[in-house]
């Protein structure tokens, strides 16, 4: 909605800068003594960061611990292991369908993301720059679509998917995920397109470029950071999606990682924890690596979509 707050934030600065760079002020942190900062800043911060990161440490540790040490917490200290094993990963890769699930997830995420980005680029460009009659209304409706949660749509969508004969096929997810991704990435890209000067397009129009050429040759190259942000965020959302995948897929080999781990790995076995955690770790790793490379884009996607 156009009347939401549109505070312009230096998005890239969120990760690196501490204070606004607007007036080059140092802030007043130098007034605080070290012991005081220790108690008011470092202590609470380290507690929160510890709590936020501990589950990952635990996940990783469990994934490499031998089974005997996992269940015997008295003879071995549970917080560390001196003889890590890759047995759980081995079991995962060679004795289960895990590579298949990883491939499914990747395939669905890439296809759905690609489809949504193409659709959103066209829609965002039309809303921001073609400004056809009712563009603002359509923009508002797309924002509303962002607020419709999957958990009230999965039941009717299941019947729709069944009617179209898509049940238990990756196509069901590839076609339904864009409903989550398009509203988000359209809003994100609208923000980016707004920052591209009109004059560039006017020049191109005078030189006889069609709207399509303007979009491909002028707007898109200038909006690359926005495209990367949208791509990464969409990809993460796809990877994370659960309820559609749980509802629309049935056969073991077609499942995506999150659904497969919850449904196929959870059995009565007390020794399941190692491979379960290995599976969770291996499933999160691609996203964490992607995130490590594109932190700034990620943050700008997250904060950008909220602020537009």
């Amino acid at each position, binding site marked *: 909605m156009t009347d939401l707050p549109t505070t312009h934030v230096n998005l890239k600065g969120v990760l690196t800068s501490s204070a606004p760079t607007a007036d080059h002020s140092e802030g007043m942190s130098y007034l605080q003594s070290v012991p005081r900062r220790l108690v008011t800043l470092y202590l609470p911060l380290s507690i929160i960061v510890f709590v936020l990161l501990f589950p990952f440490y635990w996940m990783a540790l469990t994934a490499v611990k031998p089974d005997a040490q996992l269940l015997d917490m008295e003879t071995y200290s549970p917080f560390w292991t001196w003889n890590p094993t890759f047995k759980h990963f081995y079991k995962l890769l060679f004795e289960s369908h895990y590579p298949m699930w990883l491939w499914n997830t990747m395939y669905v995420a890439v296809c759905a993301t690609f489809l949504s980005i193409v659709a959103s680029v066209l829609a965002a460009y039309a809303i921001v720059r073609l400004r056809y009659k009712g563009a603002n209304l359509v923009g508002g409706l797309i924002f509303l679509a962002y607020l419709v949660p999957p958990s009230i749509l999965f039941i*009717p969508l299941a019947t729709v998917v069944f009617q179209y004969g898509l049940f238990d096929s990756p196509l069901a997810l590839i076609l339904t995920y864009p409903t989550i991704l398009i509203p988000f990435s359209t809003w994100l890209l609208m923000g980016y397109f707004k920052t591209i000067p009109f004059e560039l397009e006017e020049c191109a129009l005078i030189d006889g470029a069609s709207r399509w050429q303007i979009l491909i040759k002028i707007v898109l190259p200038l909006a690359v950071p926005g495209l990367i942000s949208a791509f990464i965020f969409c990809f993460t959302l796809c990877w994370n999606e*659960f*309820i559609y995948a749980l509802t629309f897929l049935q056969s073991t080999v077609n499942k995506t990682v999150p659904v497969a781990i919850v449904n196929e790995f959870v059995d009565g076995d007390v020794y399941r924890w190692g491979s379960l955690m290995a599976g969770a770790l291996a499933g999160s790793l691609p996203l964490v690596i992607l995130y490590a490379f594109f932190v700034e884009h990620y943050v700008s996607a997250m904060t950008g979509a909220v602020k537009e």
Partner: protein
Amino acid sequence: MADIAITPAKAKSQIREATSWDQLKHNRNWLGFWFMVPAMAFLILFLAYPLGLGIWLSFTDTKIGRVGQFIGYENYEWLWDDAIFWLSVFNTLLYTFVASAIKFGIGLYLALLLNENMPFKAMLRAAVLIPFIVPTVLSALAFWWIFDSQFSIISWSLKHLGIINQNINFLGDPTWARICVIFANIWRGVPFVAITLLAGLQTVSPSLYEAATLDGASRWQMFRHITYPLLTPIIAVVMTFSVLFTFTDFQLIWAMTRGGPVNATHLMATLSYQRAIIAGQLGEGAAIASAMIPFLLAAIMVSWFGLQRRKWQQGENND
């Protein structure tokens, strides 16, 4: 010059009438329409249509594999007398309120902390966001293991510290189970709130704080009268999203407890999945899902009007 002046009629004849094909290619509204087709096709086919269909299904007795008959309000009447449904409504409200309030508190606090000058701040900020990146289900599994009834590391640590004698049955006891899922939800939601608010905090000029210090303001007064008012619009947006996604949460619960023990953690979303997909009562499940809509609308309205009132702070004078 003269040539041009003499032959206006000829030049005119070269401009042909715009055909309807040209209209379709160049008219702004038609072009806009063509550009919108892919996005609209997706959103209408797989969002708007199912939304309507869901409400229709809630008035039928559709089951898996059987087309339903229109039965009016029967599903809703049935739910009205269903204690488990009301329990799930209560759980959902409790879950949403408690988790959102704590997420807001800790998120704001963390944002304020991260806004300070310190070494390794870029790395810290990047690390804080990791819980938000990792797929919810996978981190929920980690919590499931952490909250295991026998091998929980928390029970172990507390036992060794001498605080408790017996393992806590985290996910087996109704109260503990609620605390655990709320904790996991907070854990996952805090980074989003914190990083978004941090982006807002950075728009606040430090000179305001300097001025306030000269006027003798305490830290609390500075927070209350500078930071908080300037942050309100972003808080409203972030909390709308947070409340919305907490209210409709499904995957965290499904991975950790599946609604148990004794339905103590069943949210409306998980209950509708259980009734619709597992039990096959699509109509009844759709009714539960549709029952979420009024709550969602209310949440959107509250934050919407909360935003409107704060508009003057953005320098716009339409209040």
